[in-house]
């Protein structure tokens, strides 16, 4: 043994040399295959920022339900054997705090991606940073239309239908179903209102735009909007597009009814809450108002025997009992979490940031249990707007009643050019 091993002295050097080369090559190959941060054999680390305190803290419940959903996924064995480690920081809806917390997530906690950060200003604050550092800013929870920009910002993707998309659906409906329409619009004079307005006007296209006979705006600080409603009525409009936040939406619907104006009414989804808007406006006054919805309303008794809704209620009871299951925000959290789980499962063991963005940009006809039937999530490398379709619904005096087919909303190309 000893003799034999001593004899091939030179070959052993060669072997060592070869081993060394292999090691270097191996290291090289390893760096080429190197996993992005945040992933081990047993864990996927996912970051998030959301307002758990401050004026926008009502939204925080969405992310609490997201965290609960990941606990459920982990209890069921995780994703391909990996548990989700969800780190969510409070940013109080303050953009610099979002920026700071996001840097902490990326540089200190080494998360794989930033999932569902909430709010338009907070997301704007980290937009550039995420794209410079090539970390996915995936399924952001805001209705602004600027997030689907695969060319300029390939690491950022929206989720919910944008204001612009939604308004274009109303425009299409008017063109298709209301002959001799004379349209009056009331909108809140800020970015949100203007985003809706642009979507509606673009949806009508050049010749349809003539149908608009009057536009009225209000400031969010205005105490009342009575005179705007009277002006709209006097303009002879027979279609009323109501682009207002909940308090004003209730006032508008009530005033329209009081002055005996009977237009076809569209109410933006932002204010589609039965409890917060239609009830104070009066159920009688709200009859016939239309809106666009994409998710099943958990407070609607229509769904009480729906198996998907039953599973949602059971899930919340077990994993987030403090949450109010009737609050539609919790349903949003449930659905957006399912979207991410879908993408992670599809990514398999190739959990690099680039591959996750690739999978997120190649979703085909995904219908989640709490989305209206017929509403599909679709993305492509040039389409970063996962939910674009809406189901129109009419208020029947008690609840929203879906009718007609699903409409596809338009994408705001203009916003991307800027």
């Amino acid at each position, binding site marked *: 043994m000893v003799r034999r091993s001593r004899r091939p002295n030179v070959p052993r050097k060669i072997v060592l040399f070869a081993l060394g080369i292999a090691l270097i090559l191996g290291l090289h190959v390893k760096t080429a295959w190197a996993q992005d941060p945040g992933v081990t054999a047993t864990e996927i680390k996912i970051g998030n920022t959301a307002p*758990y*305190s*401050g*004026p926008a803290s009502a939204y925080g419940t969405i992310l609490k339900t997201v965290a609960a959903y990941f606990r459920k996924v982990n209890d069921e064995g995780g994703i391909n054997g990996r548990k989700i480690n969800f780190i969510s*920081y*409070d940013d*109080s*809806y*303050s*953009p*610099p705090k979002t*920026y*700071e*917390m996001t*840097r*902490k997530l990326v*540089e*200190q906690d080494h998360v794989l991606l930033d999932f569902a950060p909430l*709010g*338009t*200003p*907070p997301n*704007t*604050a980290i*937009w*550039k*940073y995420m794209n410079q550092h090539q970390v996915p800013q995936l399924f952001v929870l805001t209705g*602004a239309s600027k997030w689907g920009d695969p060319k300029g910002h390939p690491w950022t993707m929206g989720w919910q239908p944008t204001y612009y998309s939604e308004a274009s659906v109303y425009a299409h409906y008017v063109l298709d179903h209301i002959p001799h329409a004379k349209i009056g619009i009331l909108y809140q004079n*800020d*970015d*949100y209102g203007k985003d809706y307005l642009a979507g509606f006007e673009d949806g009508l296209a050049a010749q349809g735009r003539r149908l608009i006979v009057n536009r009225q705006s209000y*400031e*969010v*600080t205005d105490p009342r909007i009575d005179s705007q409603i009277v002006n709209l009525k006097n303009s002879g409009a027979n279609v009323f597009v109501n682009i207002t936040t909940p308090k004003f939406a209730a006032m508008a619907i009530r005033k329209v009814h009081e002055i005996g104006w009977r237009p076809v009414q569209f109410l933006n989804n932002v204010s589609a809450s039965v409890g917060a808007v239609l009830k104070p406006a009066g159920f009688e006054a709200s009859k016939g108002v239309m809106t666009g919805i994409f998710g099943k309303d958990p407070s609607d008794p229509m769904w009480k025997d729906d198996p998907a809704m039953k599973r949602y209620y059971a899930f919340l009871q077990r994993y987030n009992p403090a949450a109010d299951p009737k609050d539609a925000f919790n349903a949003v959290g449930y659905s957006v979490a399912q979207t991410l789980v879908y993408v992670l499962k599809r990514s398999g063991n190739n959990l690099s940031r680039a591959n996750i963005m690739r999978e997120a940009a190649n979703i085909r006809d995904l219908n989640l249990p709490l989305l209206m039937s017929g509403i599909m999530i679709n993305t492509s490398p040039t389409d970063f707007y996962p939910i674009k379709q809406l189901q129109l619904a009419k208020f029947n005096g008690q609840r929203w009643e879906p009718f007609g087919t699903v409409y596809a909303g338009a994408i705001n190309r203009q916003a991307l050019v800027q």
Partner: protein
Amino acid sequence: MRLGLLLVAGVGYLLPAALSSYQTFEFTQVFIYAVALLGLNILIGYNGQFSLGHGAFYAIGAYTTAIMTTRWDIPYGWAIIAAGALSLVVGFLFGLPALRFEGLYLALATFALALATPQVLKYFDTWTGGSQGIVLDKPSVPLGLPISADQYLYYLSLTVLVILLLLAHNLLRGRAGRAITAIRDNPIAAEAMGVNAALYKSLTFGVSAMYTGIAGALGALAVAFVAPDTFSAFLSINFLVGSVVGGVASISGAIFGGAFIEFVPTYAQEISRAAPWAIFGLTLIIFMYVMPTGVAGLIRRVAAALARSMASEQPAPDSQTAAAEAAEGNRGSARAVLGKPD
């Protein structure tokens, strides 16, 4: 003071070598807050005027920088100076009518300013970009220095802080400083001695606003984004918290206060995800209980106690005792300001 400043500057300039880029950013924020708090300390601690609205001046500085650098392509260095100058003017003008208010009433008037700020910013949306805000470009590293953009911002903020610390030190030590503190301690006596109280109070408000405005300018550059939601009334309250925790009648207190409002909320979140603000509040109460004159006040007290014990052991040179006494006196006046909001 000089020795302390040298120490801070020395450690500060060497620190980034040992920090990750995220920590570098955190310390940059500390320096920026320290500049803002320095302005507040001059106003509250040395002049005895209250402000719950310095977030507004922070916003003025931030938006001046954002608008100048993105719309007019003016180099950020000039934008910082312009931000300071504009805040000085606005602060001075605000100080004129505010003179009619004393103590708590002034606090309320300035609080109104803080409450109005986000809405005013949204109202002038052709300039400010509305609630979407303005995205800035981060300053690039000049002269091909071998440091990262984060480190450059760190050094920029630290340098501005050191310059403004020196400026505050010289201002408060001189004739103007004596007039400012005299107004705090006894306005009637000060006026009897020929101090133009109205002018000095407005000027102090202006200078204080200038400091906070410069901090806002740096803050906008560091985060590279401004939006109305940044400048909620909570920011102003945070400044007041930092100022009091650090030590309101001190220059060095601004740095401790900056560190407090930067780090404590983050650590509170790490201790308890469920109730971080309860932890923050508890920490605040403990700080106020243990250090009623702020961190800087505690350090002065400890230093004074050390000096006294040394003096009792061996005959100390006169100057040292005098320094200890002066420090004690300083602390006393700080307490008077805090305890007597008249």
